[in-house]
């Protein structure tokens, strides 16, 4: 039985380590560390299995179409619920968050990597990372009590002059607790994710590409467009996708800001809307068995969506190099 343990990069003919005691220690240690790795795979699989298993009862009891119904009364008899409004709210808030956060996040990353000098850049990078450390419930409270009043004027202006765009039409004259505000709060929350990963990629652009562009007489912006963006495109895409994943799954901030409704309302400056995650937090404690199961079913949908988004982001970025949101 060969249990040769080679140090990484050792030549193929490395002499076998002799002695039973040595081998046993190595085997135990390898077993432990491999076990920890396998446990991660098991956890990921278990999340899927348990959510599916526990979602089934409510899906069987449901008398409405799970995907197209805009209602949530799973504990009624008969159970009647669907995720249409949740899906709409989740996607809409995430789109708004992305529209705001991606350009700004990439701008910040550019500023840190290619506009500011090194020390200033490092300090500013630290500050944006600090934003990532703020707990989400505090974002929610801040969004509700500081940002929302600040945004009233702007939303009113939007509804007055851009009412010809159906999205900004506001028939109620009330501009609070809307999808628009929730999306803005989400944008601020995902900003550090987008900028941290973009920054990492921007810093890896080969010096030669940059200097070549400048030497040919390019302005700084032309240099960015010609040598930074092409190199960093996969990184920027996955930075955005990882931000999107965060925006889709954010719970507490959205639950605090939105006033929950179960109808699809395209007029996104009016109060209302709901998301998968917020709905789970809001309805959890009042839910009875079928209700819990229904919430688990909606959580399963959220899990599948975020999983797809994240896996896509990872595959895109893996083609380039080793970046990770975990170390941002």
């Amino acid at each position, binding site marked *: 039985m060969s249990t040769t343990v080679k140090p990484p990069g050792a030549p193929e003919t490395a002499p076998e*380590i002799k002695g039973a005691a040595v081998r046993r220690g190595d085997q135990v240690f390898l077993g432990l560390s*491999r076990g920890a790795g396998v446990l*991660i795979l098991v956890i990921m699989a278990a999340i899927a299995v348990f959510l599916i298993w526990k979602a089934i009862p409510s899906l069987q009891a449901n008398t409405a179409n799970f995907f197209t119904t805009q209602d949530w009364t799973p504990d009624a008899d008969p159970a009647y619920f669907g995720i249409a409004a949740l899906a709409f709210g989740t996607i809409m808030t995430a789109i708004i968050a992305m529209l705001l956060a991606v350009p700004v996040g990439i701008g*910040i990353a550019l500023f840190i990597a290619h506009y500011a000098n090194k020390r200033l850049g490092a300090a500013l990078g630290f500050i944006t990372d600090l*934003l990532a450390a703020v707990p*989400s*419930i505090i974002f929610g409270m801040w969004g509700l009590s500081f940002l929302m009043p600040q945004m009233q004027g702007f939303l009113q202006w939007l509804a007055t002059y851009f009412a010809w765009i159906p999205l900004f039409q506001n028939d109620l004259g009330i501009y609070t607790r809307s999808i628009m505000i929730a999306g803005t709060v989400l944008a601020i929350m995902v900003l550090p994710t987008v900028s941290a990963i973009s920054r990492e990629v921007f810093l890896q652009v080969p010096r030669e590409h940059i200097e070549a562009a400048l030497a040919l007489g390019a302005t700084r912006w032309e240099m960015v467009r010609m040598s930074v963006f092409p190199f960093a495109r996969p990184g920027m895409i996955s930075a955005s996708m990882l931000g999107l994943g965060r925006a889709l*799954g954010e719970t*507490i901030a959205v639950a605090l800001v939105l006033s929950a409704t179960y109808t699809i309302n395209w007029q996104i400056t009016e109060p209302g809307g709901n998301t998968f995650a917020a709905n789970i937090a809001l309805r959890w404690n009042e839910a009875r068995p079928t209700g819990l199961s229904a919430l688990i079913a909606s959580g399963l949908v959220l899990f599948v969506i975020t999983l797809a988004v994240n896996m896509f982001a990872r595959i895109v970025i893996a083609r380039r190099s080793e970046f990770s949101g975990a170390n941002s």
Partner: protein
Amino acid sequence: MSTQPPVSPAPDERVESDRLLHDALAGGKLPRWAAPAAGVASLVLAFGLNVVTFVDGVAGTLVVAALLFATIQTGWSFAVEGRRHAVDRLATTLVYTTFLVALAPLVAILLTVVVRGLKALDLDFLLTSMRGVSPRAEGGGVYHAIIGTLEQVGIAAMIGIPLGIMTAIYLVEYAAQARSRRLARAVSFFVDVMTGVPSVVVGLFIYTAFVLTLGMERSGFAAALALTILMIPVVVRSTEEMLRIVPRDLREAAYALGIPKWRTILKVVLPTALGGIVTGAMLAVARIAGETAPLLLTTFMTTSINWNPFAGPQAALPTFIWDQFNSGTDASQDRAWAAALVLITIVMVLYLTAKIIARFTGVKR
């Protein structure tokens, strides 16, 4: 052929010709004071608009000033320097603006939390629980919630940090072996994917697996398990990064002395990377300390002190804030903000200490 030395022109003429030459080669250039001048002009204009038209509010005026600045500077540059430089200046303006835009929320959040949090925060607030305090009444505190948070986060750290470090060791030290390569790649991929799993989904998972299936009650321990899952990928990634920059020479020196691999890892590799590993672990703890959603699903809220994380309802800072904020009375709102200040202070202290440790220790690249 002899070269006649050129007749040097009079000084004035030379300056003039140099300027012409420069203009021919490089085009016109805005004077250095152009940007500040445009800035002042746009501020003045915006203030004027503020007085006479619909533009109002500090934020609105500043936005208008920024737009004016971009227009003035770009237009001026377009006229003097040409299209390419005008675009460059516009891009620079935009990039600088994004940074200010990003700075604003951080400052606003910290200010809001500090100003509103100080209203109810005193020593009593830290040292009493909410037992017997009605939502309307003033007084009460976060003692029970701090205990809960410390216990839950502590348990999560005790499970999550060793697991994360072991996984990272597997990925760095053992993945090179042929038999492990595919498994390691899968683990590495799913560690990344795991970072993106929403915290509420993790809460659902713990609830379905431990409460619905195994019949455990909702408790601080269940919350700790959810937090563990959330922190593992963060620990794995930061530890992995640190282990990778431990110089190979150190390992090879140990092997050459006949030290088994596992002892090499424990006695040589880990101590070398210790600073970075500690930093990563602290950042992971800071990240999970503020998690609210998984706690809402896996614990019951209470107003009294519960030292036992394995049984009974247990409060935590995030759920305390959620509860008080949603109670909606003035007194409870003040308590929510004060607790938010406590929470953000804990998180920031962890975060800053981690960054300071990272600065002074760690592997030299």
